[in-house]
């Protein structure tokens, strides 16, 4: 499944990018992404889906694989998987079936995983990924299917951290049976940068669908990669399956390390073996397992305990109609509706909470340009600096709108507003309170300023006379005096007007 000549990913030629490549080699990367669905209950039983609970507290005979139990498909999980497949522009199967994937491992209680094989829920989709330079890479989506998660193993003793060599191993089945959606991409990705951008894009998409927490650190989003390298124009090389990359940084570093390893091996005349490769975040290196467990024949066959799922057109259309606005469509709309640049709209569309924040602010504050500048400027910087999600920031849409109102009414200067924003973000207090506490508001009260002006003109008859005789420079002296009296908070324009009126201009 090679990409066509029009594919910009290929057109960039030999550069592997991301610092991993060498001249004359190109990497071919396909991704296998597992998304843990945020359904209330597990895939085939009524146990609650949880995270971080005491071991084996959310289990039942079904998800423990007791003799005689039977699976019952979670309809919500089918709906969620359909949402994902539709959002990736997949064709939805009219009739889809589950298969059993047979293998022995202690975290797999039935010794088979109920998964999908040759009739997956969705096939033939794509995801448009924006590269760092703003160009678009279209990544084909081979298939989207549903399956159940395994439990978690903890190995005690032994240096390897693996089951062989451990003194004993413990199994926690709380996670066992959690619904997973597996998304398999075409090998359309050429660099670790593109891979990272692709997974980020996918994460944002799935997040907006509201079907998963998509948290890589907690494992609700997991990513494996099939990697091979070749000389440009050659057929695909032998691929390896790279696992255990549980952050975006590790994904990128793992791919860089594996591409480097393969190139080095090939250049020294070795052959690449098709096998599973593990990334070790601690050392930044990759290692192969080559254990006897590697020779898998999963003996897939149709799951006889579950009848086929017929996905009626009406169901698919109902799910399609319920989809939120997806990033690509939102970007177009943000550009058309608010006149934002492609880059601005792209940033806001990729991050749903930020996009919502912007649209809320634009509506409340009334000034689109100012709103966009604030959201993408100071507000985003504040989130990044504090490591916060949009919803966690004390500066809500209403509070930022209040601040922008103070600026537009002339109460605060732009410079002061930034200072007030810092304080709002730091203390969680509203703008008005901070302005009052710090005495920061501009004095735009004509009466208050007039009294000061009258007093100063009377107190300085010499300079006043000079001004009246035509020495325009003397006005600056008076402005400085007013500012000194008001600690700089006087509205300068108003001060000018009042001074001229009370000094009486030359010939005035």
């Amino acid at each position, binding site marked *: 499944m090679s990409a066509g000549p029009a594919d910009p990913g290929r057109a960039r030629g030999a550069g592997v990018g991301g610092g991993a490549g060498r001249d004359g080699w190109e990497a071919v990367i396909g991704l296998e992404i597992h998304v843990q669905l945020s359904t209330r209950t597990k895939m085939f039983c009524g146990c609650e889906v949880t995270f971080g609970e005491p071991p084996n507290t959310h289990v039942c005979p079904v998800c423990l694989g007791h003799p005689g139990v039977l699976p019952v*498909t979670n309809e919500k999980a089918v709906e969620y998987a359909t949402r994902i497949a539709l959002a990736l522009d997949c064709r939805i199967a009219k009739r889809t079936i589950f298969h059993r994937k047979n293998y022995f491992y202690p975290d797999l209680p039935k010794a088979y995983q109920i998964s999908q094989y040759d009739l997956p829920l969705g096939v033939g989709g794509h995801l448009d990924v924006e590269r760092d330079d703003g160009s678009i890479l279209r990544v084909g989506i081979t298939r989207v299917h549903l399956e159940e998660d395994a439990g978690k193993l903890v190995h005690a003793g032994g240096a390897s951290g693996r089951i062989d060599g451990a003194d004993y191993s413990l199994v926690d089945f709380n996670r066992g049976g959690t619904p997973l959606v597996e998304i398999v991409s075409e090998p359309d990705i050429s660099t670790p940068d593109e891979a990272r951008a692709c997974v980020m894009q996918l994460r944002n998409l799935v997040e907006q669908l509201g079907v998963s927490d998509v948290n890589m650190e907690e494992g609700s989003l997991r990513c494996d990669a099939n990697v091979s390298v070749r000389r440009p124009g050659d057929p695909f090389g032998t691929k390896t399956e790279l696992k255990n990359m549980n952050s975006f940084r590790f994904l990128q570093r793992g791919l860089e390390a594996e591409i480097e390893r393969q190139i080095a091996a090939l250049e020294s005349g070795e052959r690449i073996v098709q096998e599973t490769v593990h990334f070790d975040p601690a050392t930044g290196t990759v290692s192969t397992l080559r254990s006897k467990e590697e020779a898998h024949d999963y003996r897939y066959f149709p799951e*006889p*305990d579950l009848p086929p799922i017929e996905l009626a057109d009406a169901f698919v259309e109902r799910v399609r109609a319920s989809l939120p606005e997806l990033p690509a469509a939102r970007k177009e709309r943000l550009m058309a509706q608010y006149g934002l640049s492609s880059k601005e709209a792209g940033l806001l569309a990729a991050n749903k909470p930020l996009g919502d924040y912007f649209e809320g602010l634009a509506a409340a504050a009334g000034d689109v340009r100012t709103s966009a500048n604030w959201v993408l400027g100071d507000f985003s910087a504040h989130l990044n600096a504090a490591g916060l999600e949009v919803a966690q920031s004390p500066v809500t849409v209403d509070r930022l709108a209040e601040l922008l109102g103070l600026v537009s009414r002339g109460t605060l200067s732009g410079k002061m507003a930034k200072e007030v924003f810092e304080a709002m973000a730091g203390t969680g207090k509203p703008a008005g309170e901070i302005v009052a506490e710090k005495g920061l508001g501009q004095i735009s009260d004509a009466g208050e300023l007039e009294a000061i002006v009258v007093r100063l003109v009377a107190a300085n008859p010499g300079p006043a006379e000079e001004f009246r005789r035509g020495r325009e420079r003397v006005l600056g002296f008076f402005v400085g005096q007013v500012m000194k009296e008001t600690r700089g908070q006087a509205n300068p324009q108003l001060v000018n007007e009042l001074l001229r009126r009370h000094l009486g201009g030359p010939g005035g």
Partner: protein
Amino acid sequence: MARIDVTGLTAHGCRDLLAGGDASAVELTRAYLDRIAAVDGSVQAYLTVDEEGALSAAAAVDAKPRRERLPWEGVPIALKDILCVKGMETTCASRILKGYVPPYDATVIAKLRAAGLVFLGKLNMDEFAMGSSTENSAFQTTRNPWDLDRVPGGSSGGSAACVAAAEAPWALGSDTGGSIRQPASLCGVVGLKPTYGAVSRYGLVAFASSLDQIGPLTHDVRDAAALLDLIAGRDPRDSTSTGLRGPAGVPARAGLEGLRFGVIKEYLGDACEQGVLEVFESAVKTVGALGGVCDEVSLPSVERGVAAYYLIAPSEASSNLARYDGVRYGYRHAPSEDLYDMYVRTRSEGFGAEVKRRIMIGTYALSAGYYDAYYAQAQRTRTLIIQDFTAAFQRFDYLISPTSPTVAFKLGERIADPLAMYLSDLCTIPVNLAALPAVSIPAGFAAGLPVGLQIIGPHFSEPGMLDAAYALERRLKVDTVAPLAAGPGVSSAEGER
């Protein structure tokens, strides 16, 4: 209170005794426990007798005013040891599940509990229901009550022998390729395999998921219909269950006028014993005498049924039995060198020879490169068999055949020859492959041993099929209680009470 004679007592008879106040539930239960104590030393049908649980359940029934009781409340029943009963050891007659106590009730068990039945205990079987003689039990050899040197059939041999020996008024078994009907035939009782999906499989330890069905073994057709109605129904826990379209009710048909019966030609060949053929031909005449019309019908594909079955069933079994890995419950070899060593030793020591044979056949049939030639080909054969039956039911209301090509064979006679053993299910296997209902009723005797007649119906035809079986049963008048004396070496408690 007169002592209750349980020999010949049906479940309906039990119900009448309780309803009429002629026996308390405790007295009835005690009578069966006494019978078990008297004869089970020779028959060895039971793996577990739950005397305490049965008596306390019976006492709870007696404590209720009679008018508040449900129809079958207080009637005892025995259960094949493949059905999960919460708190009661369930082994599937396998070392690998020795000591396993399920934390939940099978759906059929929950239904029977709710109906107030009293569970006497768990019955012997071929390990994981794989076999046709019950000799593959890891624990004991069950004997045919009609001749203690012969097998009771299998895999529900304990269930069939227990009813024939009057050690329970009725019992539940399971049928994957004939495991209810064949032992019913060999022990001279009624055995019903319902339409696939009529009865929930939740809590039935899986052998071959697409073929397994739970069903009754009883003294007569009315009991079978009643027990079917107690256990049938769609179950949200079993996505393949559908329930029946209507209750079987109380069969009452007197004649067979207006019904057309197809006699399956392929089942009357060389594999069929002469004595069995004679009984069968006589039964065909009886059908005619009752007003039914019999005609020969050919279902060419059924001759490939055994071959297809011995690929499909082991394939599913190889996956279903993979969970017995020593990790969570059941037998575990310890200490082990590593994970692989634990798996290999646990399963090598925990499973018997026939189970291992079928796991290996199934693993092979599903392997990459062989799947299409074996598993997929067997599924295509299954489709042909379904088509043959569908065509036959265009012409006939029911199909009839001998249930088993032979009468009960001697213990040990076929244990060394798996292929000969597999042919015991020649006439029953295609019914499972086509998901059809079928009932075996006693049709007579050959050389003093029972011979069963199989009646096969279209999907969900149980009410009509049992009606026809009832009419035939009434005319055939075959005794279903083995003339069994208390065996040697049995500590009979009868005299003490």
